[in-house]
């Protein structure tokens, strides 16, 4: 790629103007999204493959739900439509992670291992923003769509329905959850500066993320706490689902917001700390 025009001359100026432009991360995001989408649109057959995989995963999830509800009428106080809503949020958030978060983090890991991160660091942009917006797998967004459909069906089955207020709170909770998952991924990936080979982290996350298919309230205490603060799956899936099933309290939402802020600041600090410790790898 013709990225070699290192911005030698205007660097101080760009630096200053970047500081004044709070929308710059969003613009970068939009730019990379366009490039990523154009790239993937070349491989349209992958859409069919993704659709098939998502449908199969959905069918499996429904079978498991049916098996559980063959034996019982509620699970830890959640009815079948309510658990369907949890599943919808889980699929939706999973799609979001695989579309936008995970691909970027995997690329970062590869870049650290191969030393190609050096190229990125020479660019006159915030490195954290750059490593977070480079990759998009648009076909994975099929899951975002399927999750939304499952969610709509579940809400339709709930006798209470849902008003505009809870819908807005749901959107906020979902956004906070996504931010926390992003922070969690970046924290782990930053560890790649020290532990070079981390390929299996993807399996680790996939495995743990499956726990979000059920409300975290059914897990024993220590596990519930880990799934809330160690891996923020409770905030990413259960809390938004609580918003839809009239379970969410103001306290929980405030906790989610507070934790999101703390996590974001901590992640930013750890990323910079990691970057200072990074020596490059002779790219």
């Amino acid at each position, binding site marked *: 790629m013709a990225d070699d025009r290192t911005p030698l001359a205007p660097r101080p100026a760009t630096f200053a103007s970047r500081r004044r432009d709070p929308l710059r991360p969003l613009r970068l995001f939009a730019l990379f999204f366009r490039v990523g989408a154009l790239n993937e649109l070349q491989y349209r057959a992958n859409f069919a493959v993704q659709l098939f995989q998502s449908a199969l995963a959905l069918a499996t999830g429904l079978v498991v739900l049916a098996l559980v509800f063959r034996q019982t009428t509620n699970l830890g106080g959640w009815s079948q439509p309510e658990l369907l809503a949890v599943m919808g949020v889980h699929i939706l958030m999973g799609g979001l992670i695989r579309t936008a978060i995970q691909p970027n983090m995997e690329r970062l890991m590869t870049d650290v291992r191969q030393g190609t991160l050096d190229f990125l660091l020479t660019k006159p942009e915030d490195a954290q923003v750059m490593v977070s917006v480079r990759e998009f797998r648009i076909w994975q967004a099929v899951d975002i769509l399927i999750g939304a459909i499952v969610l709509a069906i579940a809400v339709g089955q709930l006798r209470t329905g849902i008003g505009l207020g809870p819908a807005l709170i749901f959107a906020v909770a979902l956004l906070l959850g996504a931010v926390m998952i992003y922070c969690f991924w970046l924290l782990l990936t930053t560890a790649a500066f020290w532990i070079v080979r981390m390929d*299996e982290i993807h399996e680790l996350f996939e495995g743990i993320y499956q726990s979000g298919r059920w409300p975290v309230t059914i897990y024993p205490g220590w596990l519930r706490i880990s799934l809330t603060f160690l891996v923020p799956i409770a905030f990413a899936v259960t809390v938004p689902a609580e918003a839809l099933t009239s379970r969410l309290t103001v306290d929980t939402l405030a906790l989610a917001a507070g934790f999101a802020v703390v996590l974001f600041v901590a992640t930013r600090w750890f990323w910079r700390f990691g970057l200072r410790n990074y020596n490059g790898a002779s790219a």
Partner: protein
Amino acid sequence: MTVASPAAPAQPGGFLASARGWIGLYLTQMRISIASQIQYRVSNYFYMIGMIAEPVIYLVVWSTVARQQGGSVGGYSPGEFAAYYIVWTLVRNFNIALTPWAWEERVRGGALSGMLLKPVHPIHLDLAGLAGWKAVVIVLWLPIAAFLSLIFQPTLDLRPIDVVVFLVAIWGAYVLRSMFLWLLGLVTFWTTRVGPVFDIFFVAELLLSGRLVPLTLMPDWTQRLSGALPFQWTFSFPIEALIGRLPPEQLLGGLAMQVLWIAIGAVLVSLAWGKAVRRFSAVGG
């Protein structure tokens, strides 16, 4: 390209020498894989913890159901579910065979050309290599099993015969699953769109093997379907053999079924491999 005949290592001097050749081959492959896997302990641990999330989730869900239904469901109490899913973790680790996805890389990257030059059928290299990994896996698994037992309090009541049959059955399960995953991987020689085929296989395995839930929790027709397929002999049977207090005839019958399915798998693999390798043309390596 021409293909070395997939026969035994070419060694003069009768059965003993040839047996020694095979054992040497397996031991060496196992040693190499132990040495290479032990370097990646963190990575291996990530992999294991990710894997262990799965049974813990099933365990929590089904224990909750059992408690809500007055203490047991499908014949399992929470303690018995704990035993089932903790043994599951070892069985699952033993069941790790060559992923069918590896074939794409082997063919494209050219590694297959190198394997074809060796005087043994490549399945032996995979079987031996992954068998060596099991040694590393068991060492890493012990603390996890201890931890899970402490937390979930499994109900275990073992007879010596259960343990003996279990120790044989997990290897049987490994070889059996290896055969069918190898067979599945060979699909790569005919089509490059292997994903959907693999996905269907793994979903069928998940539902029909006892990996998701003990088979007694499935509807009757599913249990009958499962009886006609190899899957349950790789998950359900080893687990039940250890914890299910099966009568001796069921224990031995289960081992016999494993042998039968391994034999069927081996025949299918050798037929498919013969055809597959003729379709293969090397692209470097």
